């Protein structure tokens, strides 16, 4: 019984973190048609920005976290302007450029902070017991914050003017241009949002599981798998996929820890073979 409750709660947390990691990735693909292989690195750099602010300037966690999120919100569009925009019309070059950016960020962070894993302090200390399972407030807070962000993003895309423009761009680029949507500025904004979301995901992952420069690769694989499983560019698809991958990983972790990591990869391979366009194809954006 305790095991099942644990799986349900931990699975929810992990799934929502995966969803957060994948969202920014899928938004950039949906709007700009760019597969940003540096997305995992953005999340990792976000967590390290907070670590840096805390150790170098002695800031508290909330201030450092805000700094990290804002920092990535600014850095991501900058990286886009310098490394992606000049070669935007050549997908293979963009693909390789973001891959190289990812390894450069990974190696630079490793150089400054070493390859060792670091753990961010929890946002909220303490825990309570539910049905014989200890649950830390930090986990509850994280899940709640992630849910709020997802909800806010959904409202933003459905209701706000800018959000609707983003949705329109991801559906039909030419049509959006015809009704006067300024694609270039919006793409820049989406890179900012994506960077900020990545940083939030990095912060939470850093506080639960610890973060190291090489973690970037795992985060990228998670984002990539989630997004492909759900269908590239589809936000609801990514959410479904995040929960499928998150729960299957948690269940396997609980009952067969040695096969961890293999199972989600196997699921992904099967889905890719049976339904190459993902669970919810692009049309459902």
């Amino acid at each position: 019984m305790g095991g099942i409750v644990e799986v349900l709660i931990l699975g929810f947390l992990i799934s929502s973190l995966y969803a957060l990691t994948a969202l920014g990735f899928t938004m950039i693909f949906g709007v700009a048609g760019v597969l940003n292989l540096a997305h995992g690195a953005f999340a990792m750099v976000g967590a390290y920005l907070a670590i840096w602010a805390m150790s170098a300037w002695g800031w508290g966690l909330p201030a450092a976290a805000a700094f990290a999120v804002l920092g990535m919100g600014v850095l991501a569009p900058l990286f886009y302007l310098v490394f992606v925009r000049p070669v935007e019309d050549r997908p293979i070059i963009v693909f390789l450029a973001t891959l190289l950016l990812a390894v450069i960020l990974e190696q630079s962070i490793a150089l400054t902070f070493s390859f060792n894993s670091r753990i961010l302090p929890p946002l909220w200390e303490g825990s309570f017991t539910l049905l014989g399972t200890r649950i830390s407030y930090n986990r509850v807070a994280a899940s709640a914050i992630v849910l709020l962000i997802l909800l806010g993003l959904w409202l933003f895309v459905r209701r706000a003017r800018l959000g609707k423009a983003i949705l329109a761009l991801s559906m039909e680029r030419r049509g959006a241009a015809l009704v006067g949507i300024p694609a270039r500025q919006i793409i820049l904004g989406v890179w900012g949002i994506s960077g900020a979301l990545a940083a939030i995901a990095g912060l939470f992952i850093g506080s639960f599981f610890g973060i190291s420069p090489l973690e970037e690769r795992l985060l990228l694989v998670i984002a990539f798998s989630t997004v492909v499983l759900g269908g590239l560019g589809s936000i609801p698809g990514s959410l479904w996929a995040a929960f499928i991958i998150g729960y299957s990983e948690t269940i396997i972790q609980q009952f067969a820890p040695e096969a961890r990591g293999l199972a989600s990869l196997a699921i992904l391979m099967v889905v890719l073979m049976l339904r190459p366009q993902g669970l919810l194809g692009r049309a459902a954006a």
Partner: protein
Amino acid sequence: MSRPRQLRLPSCLWWIGLGLTLGLLLAIPYLLPLLFPDMKVNPILLRRWLDTLTVACLWAILAMSWDLLGGYAGQISFGHSLFFGLGGYTSAVMSVLFGWSPVLIIALGGLVAAVGGLVVAAPALRLHGPYLSLMTLVAALAFERLMRWAKPQIGIPGAEGAILCIPQCFLTFDATAKYYYALGLMVGMALLLYALTRSRFGLALEAIRDDEEAAQAAGLNTAKYKTLAFGMSAFIAGLSGAFYVYHIGSASPKAVLDLEISVQAIVASVLGGLGTIFGPIFGAFFFKITEEYLRLLGALRFVVLFSLALGVLLLVPGGLLAKLRVQLRRGWQALYTPAGAVRNAQETGELGVGRRR
């Protein structure tokens, strides 16, 4: 004013350049002690550099194999470490179990990797662009996890799925001889790939890269060509992995299955120029030699190298070798202009060239 006429670099000059490079590569074990007196005094230093060049040859083979698939066929693989590792593990297992001759085992490593390539190609045929890249990445990651989990108990099992096969998978103590073996394999593969990419097969791959639907409409069996490209690329990557295990004396997930290996193959291809076969060789040598040269910088050297590759990708998308060729052609033009071109230009009325004197 009309544009200066393109004076083509005579193809014999290109072949002479290649021949000179090959001669240089052949002479390196003897040139190094002459050029760097430290190496004559300190044979360990010479050995270290010969080992670096040996690895550079193997990396060049890997990068060329990636280029066949990525540069020619346009199928960007992130999982070449899988093929490299399949070759490497085959070497380690077979040398321990059967102890056949290295030539046989390395060839077998290539074959096993080719089978792996065909297995990956089967689902990959249905996938395009990023989906295909992810599929290859996932296949490579899954195999790495599998090896870490299975921990093969063969030879001297190391931690985390490593196999040490030091007495069995051993080529020679002689660093010079080892370098020549690697160089020979590299030259052989380069010639094979060069011929392959200039044949109907290579043309078909380029057609698929540029527009798969058009290639299909023109009657090409794209599935057949893509499968062949996967198999061929995997075979060659497997050979280099199998040889690499004979070089380092063990196979481990860290040494032959790490994603870093795929990234480095891609970086070498990008540095030298995608879709050129000779470019990746140049890129791999440049990468490995710079890496060794900057050893003192520690991890910083990777930041330097990857930044350089990114710069090349953005500023010289054709690669450094192609750039070099263009510069050479300009130089040749300047040399050639005074004599022939003026007469030529006067005859055709294009005085633009003549004035450049």
